[in-house]
């Protein structure tokens, strides 16, 4: 039952992909359906094997690269589509392009790759599942049944509803991203916002240096606050949204501004207008798929920002230091520090406080870290599915790397393990917390 519930969004996405593939390659619909289903099964089986053989984040990284590559490919298609539609002279019908788009090779390749990606994303729901053969068969069967249903349903759609090549790419990309965004470890939007934030920060710095613009001390505070917006968390989100939707918008623009075929050679006015009206109508119908794809992409952003995954985030236990200023936490006391879960603690001293956690990662060695990193605002961390997530920037940190400094990793604290438990220096804890929180607060929004 839980299995089926997990599968629903992915199978729905797969159904959408199948529908646009079958309608997009109308002359090769059966080829597309079969190739897609085989691709799905292969992608799912391959991923399940990868998950079993490679530990940590590597299998997810591979699939993210595949999805990211697909997104970039779609971006290229959207730019080409806009470029072609913005050519000034009314061009002759692109027969060669149309033939290529409807060729069997194209249909099989597109369907297979989409199927592999969709199957891989689907299989990532089932980390830790032992019987991969049975699961692969189940997923393959589910995909095949869905493909058959779609083949039947597609016949019921009106013939006028056409999927253009760029619309097909838009829909497949959007559905794959929607499917992957429901899994935090495959989400691309959150890391994209971080990269955009970093790029914007670097670009603005570089721009100021290159254009010899005076340093911030010479600006009025109003001006600097305005410039400071570019260093905030918001710029990552909005910049990420811009990039996320850019290919979709380009495809919609390309279709909306597509030139109507020349009709000047037709001397009868009513016939000319009928041709123009038919072209305008066909153009509008071709817009349906990319617009739906844009909405689905919006859904993917929503899933990324509000994941349905439950994070393990215990209420911090209050601890105190002994007269020597040491905090001692027994390994198996009120909480079992070695159970693999995140355990949070709060220490207060002299009007200041510090939040930290202790975790036993897969390496088997305890780690003590601040519940904050050196970059983001100290919103803290949660734990789920083999990772720890920064609540501020939504970066996922694999458990294997918790305890190592850098990036958005929690700031590690020195500690010792003795017979009576974990020993942490209280003053050092407070000072490190204060300096970390101060430095992140100094940057507006606390972002990178």
């Amino acid at each position, binding site marked *: 039952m839980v299995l089926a519930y997990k599968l629903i969004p992915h199978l729905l996405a797969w159904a959408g992909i199948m529908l646009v593939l079958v309608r997009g390659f109308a002359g090769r619909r059966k080829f597309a359906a079969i190739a897609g289903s085989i691709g799905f099964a292969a992608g799912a089986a391959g991923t399940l094997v990868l998950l079993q053989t490679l530990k940590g984040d590597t299998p997810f990284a591979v699939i993210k690269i595949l999805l990211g590559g697909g997104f*970039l490919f779609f971006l*290229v298609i959207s*730019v080409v589509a806009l*470029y072609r539609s913005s*050519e*000034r*002279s*009314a061009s002759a019908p692109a027969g060669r392009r149309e033939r290529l788009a409807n060729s069997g090779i194209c249909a099989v390749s597109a369907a297979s790759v989409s199927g592999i990606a969709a199957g891989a994303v689907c299989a990532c729901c089932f980390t830790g599942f032992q019987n991969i053969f049975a699961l692969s068969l189940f997923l393959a069967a589910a995909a095949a049944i869905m493909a058959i249903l779609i083949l039947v349903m597609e016949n019921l759609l009106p013939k006028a509803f056409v999927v253009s090549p760029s619309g097909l790419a838009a829909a497949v990309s959007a559905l794959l991203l929607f499917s992957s965004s429901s899994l935090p470890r495959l989400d691309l939007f959150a890391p994209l916002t971080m*990269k955009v934030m*970093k*790029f914007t920060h*670097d*670009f603005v710095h*570089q721009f100021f240096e*290159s*254009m*010899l*613009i*005076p*340093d911030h*001390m*010479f*600006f*009025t*505070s*109003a*001006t600097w606050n305005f410039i400071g917006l570019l260093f905030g968390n918001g710029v990552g989100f909005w910049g990420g949204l811009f990039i996320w939707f850019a290919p979709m918008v380009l495809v919609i623009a390309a279709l909306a501004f597509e030139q109507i075929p*020349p*009709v*000047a*050679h037709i*001397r009868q*006015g009513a016939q*000319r207008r009928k041709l123009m009206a038919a072209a305008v109508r066909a153009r509008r119908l071709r817009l349906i798929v990319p617009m739906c794809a844009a909405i689905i992409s919006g859904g993917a952003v929503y899933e990324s920002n509000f994941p349905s995954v439950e994070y393990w985030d215990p209420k911090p236990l209050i601890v105190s230091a002994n007269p020597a200023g040491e905090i001692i936490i027994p390994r198996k006391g009120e909480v079992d520090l070695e159970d693999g879960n995140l355990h949070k603690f709060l220490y207060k001293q002299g009007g200041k406080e510090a939040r930290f956690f202790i975790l036993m990662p897969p390496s088997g060695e305890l780690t003590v870290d601040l519940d904050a990193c050196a970059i983001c605002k100290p919103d803290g961390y949660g734990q789920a599915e083999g990772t720890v997530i920064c609540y501020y920037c939504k970066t996922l940190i694999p458990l294997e790397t918790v305890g190592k400094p850098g*990036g958005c990793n929690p700031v590690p604290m020195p500690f010792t393990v003795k017979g009576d438990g974990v020993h942490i220096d209280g003053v050092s804890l407070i000072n490190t917390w204060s300096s970390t929180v101060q430095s992140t607060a100094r940057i507006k929004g606390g972002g990178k």
Partner: protein
Amino acid sequence: MMRLFRHIYGFLASRALTPVVMGMFLFLYIGLAFFTEEALITLIGLVGSNVFLIILFALIPLNMGVRLLKEVKGHFERRRALLGEMERVPQGLFDETVAVGGAPSFAEAERRLAASGYKIHVSGRTLSAWRGISMFPSRALFLAATVCLFSGILLSLAGRSSYRGAIMEGELLPSQSGQATDVVERITLEPAAGPILSKVLTIETRPLPPDRGGATYGLYPPARYRGAFVYPRYMGIGLYYRFTAPDLPRDYASRSLLGIYPPGKEDRRDIPDSPYRLVFSMAQPADGSDPYMTGRVTIAFKLLKGKDLLMSGSAPIGGEFSRDGYRLAFPDVRRVVVTDFILDHGVVPIWAAAVLFVIAACVWLPVRLLSPRREMVFISSKDGVLHACSRAEGRCRKHAGVFHDVLDVLEAAIV
């Protein structure tokens, strides 16, 4: 040879060239982002030091330049066509071209076009009509701006060099060659009244020997010194201090450049061959004034011996602090501006590009909204064929309707 030249020209004039090259750099950036946190800096460094990448980047301004020339050529060819100086219109010059058999009279067509608001020109076997303002000037400005922008970036990437120096009152202006000839007379920091800058920095120099007039360097736009842009980075003070300790054989005196502006920032100096360290900062005056502006500087200090704090205190410039055999005097302080001297030939083209972009936008927007250019030409060739061409930079549907209507009229005239 001509064929090769045509291929090269076609490649350089292609609309796809710039997006493809920019796409390549985008993918390079994305690839670098996987391996380093400083992807942009790395990319800039890589492009600047790699000949192939420089050449690849250079294709962008070259492409824009060739397209500019192509559009200029196209614009003047269209003018010639509209003035009836062409027998045949080259392919691609207009948006829509159609050939109709026959050699009609243009009278009725002229009347229709005039009624639709078009200006008419008839010459020989050509009827042309147009209305609106051409976007060619804004387009040319835009392309020129992109040439300037990318050329500027290219020059900057490939040829930017800089050196940093401290400009101190009373001292020579730093020079990379070491042959400085100008003395810094005065550095002033004053409040500014505008909405953008809160302070204005001025550096006045005089030549040594005084065989010419002095120079003044400000904040923005930066002035040039021996071809290099003078780019102030941050302020500090050149503090001359004298330190005496009971266990030191002699007084220690030094003029140090301290980065202790604005008040609150600390800078430290070790006393050589001793365990002493001085930590300096600038005291914030009680009246809230800026000591750098007023010149009324009070130096706060901490004296450390090893890790231990021995004493702390403050003294104004010209004063001294003494306790327990320790004495610290601040006879003199001078204003310092730590400055980068940037040799970059790309800055001016980039500024020029910004200005051109703004002008192009100011020209384009009202023309596009209010009166876009629409043209049509009907050429009755000697072989009895009427060639009709149409082009619209906006309001295309309405213009196409008029074009088709005139074609109907001309065809009716043929029949």
